């Protein structure tokens, strides 16, 4: 217990917030933690959201998406990172030296983003979409005016899960080269300074909770009126009812 208290106190020492040759600096580490997380999420989003919407809209390719998502979840992050660090060259548009990290963390974020977007569209009542088609909407209009607004809770839920996953996992980047809040953990372990390790863990957990809270608020605001967060129970007697539970898009991450 006292270790946890000491960890909290460590965070509030002003000297630990400034960067010097002998200290990574919480402020700097936090900024880099967010930058690396944000870039990874961006890369993942650019790939996974359009793909997920396509799958959800057309119903094509979902088998492939599920299988590849599951494989992506099984890839050991540390192992992949260690090999990409040595052999992956810099990629255009990404900051030099960060490519391997961004690739690895983006890979983690893709399954929940993909699943969130196609499940978001699939959860919509088919009759609604048929009605939209019947009144002469184009496929693009159906996607942007009907499917995305109705599926937005799950889509944001996917973004929420993947953000949390990235924010928690970016912690391991300092085991190799980058500076993030995990730096205090990696350094503390090497220096046998467990107060620093605990302080790092508290910082990561606090950041994750704050981000999760922000997403919870966003989710509440983006769901259109008329689509309640917990829709009235369908007449489901089978597991189809999960769609309802899933609709709030609550997050679970794994693999940090």
């Amino acid at each position, binding site marked *: 217990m006292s270790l946890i208290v000491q960890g909290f106190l460590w965070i509030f020492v002003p000297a630990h917030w400034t960067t010097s040759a002998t200290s990574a600096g919480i402020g700097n580490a936090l900024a880099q933690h967010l930058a690396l997380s944000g870039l990874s999420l961006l890369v993942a989003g650019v790939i996974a959201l359009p793909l997920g919407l396509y799958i959800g809209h057309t119903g094509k390719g*979902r088998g492939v998406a*599920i299988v590849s998502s*599951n*494989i992506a*979840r*099984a*890839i*050991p*992050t*540390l*192992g992949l990172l*260690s*090999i990409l*660090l*040595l052999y992956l060259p810099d990629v255009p548009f990404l900051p030099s030296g960060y490519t391997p990290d961004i690739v690895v963390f983006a890979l983690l974020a893709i*399954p*929940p983003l993909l*699943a*969130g977007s196609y*499940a978001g569209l*699939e*959860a919509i009542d088919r009759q609604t979409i048929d009605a939209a088609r019947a009144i002469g909407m184009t496929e693009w209009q159906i996607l942007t005016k009907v499917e995305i607004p109705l599926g937005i809770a*799950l889509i944001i*839920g*996917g973004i929420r*899960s993947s953000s*949390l996953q990235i924010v*928690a*996992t970016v*912690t*391991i980047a300092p*085991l190799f080269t980058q500076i993030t809040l*995990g730096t205090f*953990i990696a350094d503390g*372990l090497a220096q046998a300074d*467990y107060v620093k*390790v605990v302080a*790092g*863990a508290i910082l*990561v*957990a606090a950041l994750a*909770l704050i981000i999760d809270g922000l997403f919870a608020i966003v989710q509440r605001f983006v769901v259109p009126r008329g689509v309640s967060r917990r829709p009235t*129970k369908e007449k*489901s*007697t*089978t*597991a*189809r009812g*999960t*769609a*309802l539970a*899933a609709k709030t*898009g*609550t*997050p*679970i*991450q*794994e*693999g*940090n």
Partner: protein
Amino acid sequence: MYSIWDNFFGGSYPIWYLTLDHIGLCVIPILVGFFVSIPLGYLASRSRGARSVLISVFSILYTLPSIVLFVVVPVTLGLAILDPTNVIVALSIYAVAIMVRSSADAFSSVSADVRESARAVGYSPAQRFFQVELPLAGPVLLAGMRIVSVSTVSLATVGVFIGIPSLGLLFTDAFNRQIPLEAVTGIVAVLILALIFDVILSTIARILLPWNRRESRRRAARTASKAVVM
């Protein structure tokens, strides 16, 4: 030159024996993830208060970086430092953290009408749980367990940082000695192991949930995909 053939049963990092070590680290956490989160998830599905407490506690546990848990658990348990139990306990905590939410959602998915009907035809609470709610929650529980098993197999590799051998040794050695083939071997071995665990889980589910087979394929897949978002 590094060759998979020479290192399968022999060499300093024998792939086969590291795979066995790896399996030894994963089986118990997956079982714990299932059996501990069923009562917790059931509790969470019955009471909003319990749900918010349980889910927040396990969410916080989950944001803890695995490397921290791997260091803190041995200190807390006071076990031998090189005892694989340390990794097994840490992985079990993660497994429960993932599974509690899935299991809460699984039991919430059982409609109140069905529970009421079961009560109406005279089922005792225990009968209702084992013969009605648990079977109906089955498909969603299975979807959660698949995530638990895949992530446990992948996370077990981190144990090498506290000296517990697993396929993760292939990564650290490959990195130190710069042998890409060894790292790729390690990653592929982890993926294959995850796949085997997944097949075992689905097979058990097929035996235990025979009606799930008769459901239209599409519906079953949809159910699974929704659970996967969370």
